[in-house]
């Protein structure tokens, strides 16, 4: 008997047993779709948690570095970080001026010496065109500080949302000129509100190009920098690389320290690790449940199959013909069931993503392929097992199966 015949017999057998074939297929479909949807749900949760921790300021790296010789490290650090673009998105000097600041606009005066509340106290920060990125600020109005602003010593500034309110009373600040310690600066942009509850005092910033520092402050050697890494793992990697770089650059001739600004990073990483373990557990359990379902349906029909095999042997079927028939049958049913299961899993995942997370959630290819292979292997294994067993019996024994 050739393969073509085996295919014909198997196809005939599937078509003849429509109800049972559909039930078996349903087992594979449900098992597979359940795995895909559950794992995707956990992945969606994971992604949401990552986003939450990132919003808390993860992936930010604070760098303290100064050389005893007073050498300016800004360009070296910038060049090095741009080379590490697999891990690092940007780097900026971060100078926070803590001496007296007086801001004037028309008749209005704001000063860090006279403000009564913390959120009303102007905070002056100096950075480059990547400062906003590295501090998780986004521009709400106008534009950000540009590379040229930095290079050309442009006297421009970007205001935190609360500062803009205090100075301009909801009027449009863009294009207006304010003075900072008697130096005129054009307002080119306003940041989006960061902190509506005034918990961290992030909306009282005034940011100017760091090249203006020498006109506002006597210090010209920047020792504080901030960088933003791509994600949690990149942060860890970048910290290691930066430490190595600074060791080579400064070594014993200065001081350097690289770290994440807060405990969220570590806590977030820990949470994500836990979540991933949870996810693995869910995948394993749902695969087991799906697999048992498939197994169950396949084993239910053992008696029926054993009799059928007895008949086939009695009329002259070779053992290999019988095994080939049942193998092809199981492959066809589980293959079709598996593909339908993936389809249902994808649709289910899209729906779950929309309803639960309001985002486009797609199952990972690894889980899809893995779950497909395992459920198809289970279906084939348990479909084939009775065939292998029964085809080895004497026909009269197989025929006796009740």
């Amino acid at each position: 008997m050739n393969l073509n015949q085996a295919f014909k017999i198997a196809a005939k057998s599937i078509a003849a047993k429509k109800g049972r074939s559909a039930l078996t297929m349903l087992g594979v479909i449900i098992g597979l779709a359940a795995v895909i949807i559950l794992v995707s749900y956990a992945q969606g949760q994971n992604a949401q948690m990552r986003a939450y921790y990132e919003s808390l300021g993860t992936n930010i790296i604070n760098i303290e570095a100064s050389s005893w010789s007073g050498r300016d490290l800004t360009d070296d650090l910038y060049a090095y970080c741009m080379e590490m673009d697999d891990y690092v998105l940007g780097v900026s000097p971060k100078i926070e001026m803590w001496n007296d600041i007086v801001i004037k606009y028309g008749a209005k005066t704001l000063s860090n010496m006279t403000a009564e509340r913390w959120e009303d106290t102007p905070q002056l920060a100096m950075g480059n065109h990547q400062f906003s990125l590295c501090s998780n600020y986004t521009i709400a109005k106008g534009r950000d500080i540009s590379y040229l602003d930095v290079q050309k010593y442009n006297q421009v500034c970007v205001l935190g949302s609360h500062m803009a309110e205090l100075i301009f009373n909801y009027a449009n600040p863009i294009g207006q000129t304010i003075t900072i310690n008697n130096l005129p600066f054009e307002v080119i942009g306003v940041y989006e509100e960061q902190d509506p509850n005034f918990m961290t005092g992030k909306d009282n910033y005034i940011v100017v190009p760091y090249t203006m520092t020498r006109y506002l402050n006597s210090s010209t050697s920047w020792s504080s920098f901030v960088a933003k890494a791509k994600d949690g793992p990149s942060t860890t990697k970048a910290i290691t690389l930066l430490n190595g770089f600074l060791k080579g650059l400064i070594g014993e001739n200065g001081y350097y320290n690289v770290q994440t600004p807060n405990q969220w990073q570590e806590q977030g990483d820990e949470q994500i690790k836990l979540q991933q373990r949870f996810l693995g557990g869910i995948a394993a359990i749902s695969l087991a449940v799906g697999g048992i379902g498939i197994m169950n349906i396949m084993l239910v029909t053992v008696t029926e199959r054993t009799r059928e095999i007895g008949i086939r042997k009695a009329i002259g079927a070779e053992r290999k013909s019988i095994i080939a028939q049942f193998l092809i049958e199981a492959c066809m049913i589980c293959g079709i069931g598996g593909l339908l299961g993936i389809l249902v899993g994808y649709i289910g995942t899209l729906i779950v993503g929309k309803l639960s997370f309001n985002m486009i959630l797609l199952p990972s290819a690894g889980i899809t392929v893995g779950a497909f292979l395992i459920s198809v292997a289970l279906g084939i294994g348990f479909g084939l097992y009775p065939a292998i067993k029964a085809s080895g019996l004497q026909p009269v024994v197989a025929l006796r199966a009740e």
Partner: protein
Amino acid sequence: MLIDVKNLFKIYNEGEEAEVRALDGVSVGIDRGEFVAIIGASGSGKSTLMNILGCLDIPTYGDYHLDGLDVTELNDRQLAHVRNKQIGFIFQGYNLIPALNAWENVELPLIYQGVPASRRADQVEEALERVNMADRAKHRPTEMSGGQQQRVAIARAIATRPPIIMADEPTGALDSKTGLHVLEILHSLHADGSTIILITHDNGIAATANRVVRLSDGHIIYDGAREGAFQ
């Protein structure tokens, strides 16, 4: 001799307290073209003998030559070929595959034999016509009466044109009129040259055979012409 069996034993639970000797040293020879009825009470071993003759079971001890071939030496694959080409087996319970229709059931042994589709159709047609079931070819077993199912089973047994037809209580599940019809078919096959071996507990049916073998407790207690079998 077509079938030559010597000193055949089939022993279950050998050496244990519950040892059962279904066949206890049976020797029998059957020539081409004979019509043999094997009779005996239930438990006499007649079905066991038939299963072994039909290569559906293997003896515990003993020799079995089928058309000169030592069956006890054959492997699983060779036994499948013998069952396919040499023997057509008819069961009391028909043993049709319920999911397949009459045509497909009859076609199955031909597929296993590797007969090409074009010739297969002719042979299936011929076999079904022989048992007068050609008009029921598309019916499933559940859509047929017992007699019709048994006729399809006979068509399946003769589809590969085997020299030997073995029937294990072929009329046992049928009413007497239908049973007689099945018996007629077997006689017509015999008339065409087939060797027929028939198991029955019905003396009336056995009396239509040329030769009768009677078993009791795993032994042959009578083997000869039907005229002396029922005295």
